[in-house]
């Protein structure tokens, strides 16, 4: 009897897990779906203002590639082997956000080491991991709790329900329907007006880093405000 119940329970769990993961929509796309249209911008003064080019060489585009970060997280994991999974999930939130949030939406922890070296990425998951703080991360952050402590340490709000193809990215402007569908046809995202994108509170979601201090057993024993330029 107990055995049957256990088997039933196991089957139910597997089904639920697969249902839940099947339902998690694809939240992000990599920057190659954005750059073709948002590059090649030249100001009236002749200065190249291509967004993709500017982003590509930024610290944030390379946040996951950063060897210092990779070394720091490796060290943390070596010091706290029992907490290695939690550490990877936590450190990935800002440095490898697309992979981390997609994994969490699918009920998994974000992983870091399996994706290294990032230059060899070929799978969608690997490419999301390598793309760092990509266009569709910042531009999907909603205005929920911005500026509030609840939004700090990468706890920004983001739509986790809408399926790929109908999701929105926010920007400062009203975009007409024709251009919305033009952008959607290639990037899978609809541009939508959301002036919160221009607020410093948006940046504060990741740039306010409050980490947990772990004891030798990997238990949380305190909080450390590591970076608080916004506060």
């Amino acid at each position, binding site marked *: 009897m107990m055995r049957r119940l256990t088997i039933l329970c196991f089957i139910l769990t597997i089904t639920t897990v697969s249902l839940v993961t099947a339902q998690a929509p694809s939240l992000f796309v990599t920057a190659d779906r954005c750059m073709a249209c948002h590059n090649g911008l030249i100001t009236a003064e002749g200065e190249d203002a291509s967004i*993709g080019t500017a982003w590509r060489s930024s610290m*944030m585009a390379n946040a996951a590639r950063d060897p210092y970060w990779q070394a720091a997280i490796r060290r943390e994991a070596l010091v706290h082997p029992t907490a290695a999974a939690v550490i990877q999930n936590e450190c990935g939130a800002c440095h490898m956000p697309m992979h981390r949030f997609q994994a969490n939406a699918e009920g998994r922890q974000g992983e870091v080491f399996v994706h290294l070296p990032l230059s060899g990425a070929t799978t969608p998951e690997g490419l999301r991991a390598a793309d760092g703080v990509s266009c569709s991360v910042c531009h999907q952050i909603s205005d929920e709790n911005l500026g509030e402590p609840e939004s700090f340490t990468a706890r920004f709000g983001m739509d986790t329900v809408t399926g790929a193809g109908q999701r929105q990215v926010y920007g400062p402007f009203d975009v007409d329907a024709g251009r919305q*569908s033009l952008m959607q046809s290639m990037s899978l995202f609809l541009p939508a007006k959301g002036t919160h994108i221009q607020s410093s509170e948006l940046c504060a979601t990741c740039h306010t880093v409050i980490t947990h201090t772990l004891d030798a057993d990997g238990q949380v024993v305190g909080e450390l405000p590591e970076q608080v330029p916004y506060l």
Partner: protein
Amino acid sequence: MIRPSRLHRCESSITLFIAAVSLVPLTLVAAEEPVLDNGRAVYQAACASCHGSSGRGAPPSLLALDTPPPDFTDCDFANREPDSDWMGITYEGGPSRGFSEFMPAFQGALTVEQVQLAVNHIRTFCTDQRWPRGELNLPRPLITNKAFPEDEAVITTLIDAGGLGSILNKFVWEQRFGPRSQWEVVVPFGWLETVDVIEDDGSTRWSSSMGDIAFALKHAFYHNHEKGSIVAIAGEIIFPTGDDELGFGNGTTVFEPFIAWGQILPANFFFQTQLGAELTADKDKAENAAFLRCALGWTTTTGQFGRAWSPMVEVTAGREFASDADIRYSIVPQIQITLNKRQHIMFNIGVREPLNERDVRNSQVVFYLLWDWFDGTLLEGW
């Protein structure tokens, strides 16, 4: 990442639409969008960011796309595509024709007229007008040969509707070379029912064999897109590889010269005709003959740029040079349909109905499956 927003706005508001602002001098005061009323302006604003000002494609480093844009200066590729295909792709996006999503859909952002202007501009990138335009590539009739040089594979089947059984197939491989020429190989094979002469009890038996393999060359010596005309001459040598005793061949080498003409008519009608002769090496085996074939057809599409349907009627006439021979007429009503999104796989089915000598000639069901292999593999574009 953060930039003075107004300044940025004037570019991004037209992101694509001013890919080369150098051509459309924008000042902050005159931050209006450029007027997109000529091909160059539309192309520069909407297409050049990916396809490049030169039509060769923007540098890969700027695009970072898995599927690079095609090279529009390559006449071999560009001229064979008709405007309607390109308009469809541009208006409805790459996936509408089984291409990559990286080719966006401009419906709503540009009008059909502006898309036509952009496509007109793309046409200026190929400067070698020896390559005939894809518009002249009319739907292939079941019997009449086309004037347009092709890269395609076709398998045609003819099944007799009465009398002794006959299923004859013809596999044709066509391949272009140079701007206006093409070679082709034809391999027929089939099954024929014959009266069993050994048993001599009226029973029949089926036999199968390969037919007479043929090799042909074709050259479109005249084509004019404005006039909608294309004319080609061709010569085919048919080798006696088939078993003529069983009825699978002529038993002698045949040389078949012909001239083919395709003409676009108003209101989506078109006309194709082929005039030729069959000159045999051995008069005892087969007579010299002449033939004339014509096809009148009309094309319509599902939706503005969707699946193409081309009903056609062919009339064929053939006569052997022997003095007592009559002209044999047939009529072949048929319809050609594009099967997949990319429209490079097509099916045509019709009936070949003899108009005279009906006591010795059977009605036939004729159909083909056509694969325009230059446009993609068999599995692509569905």
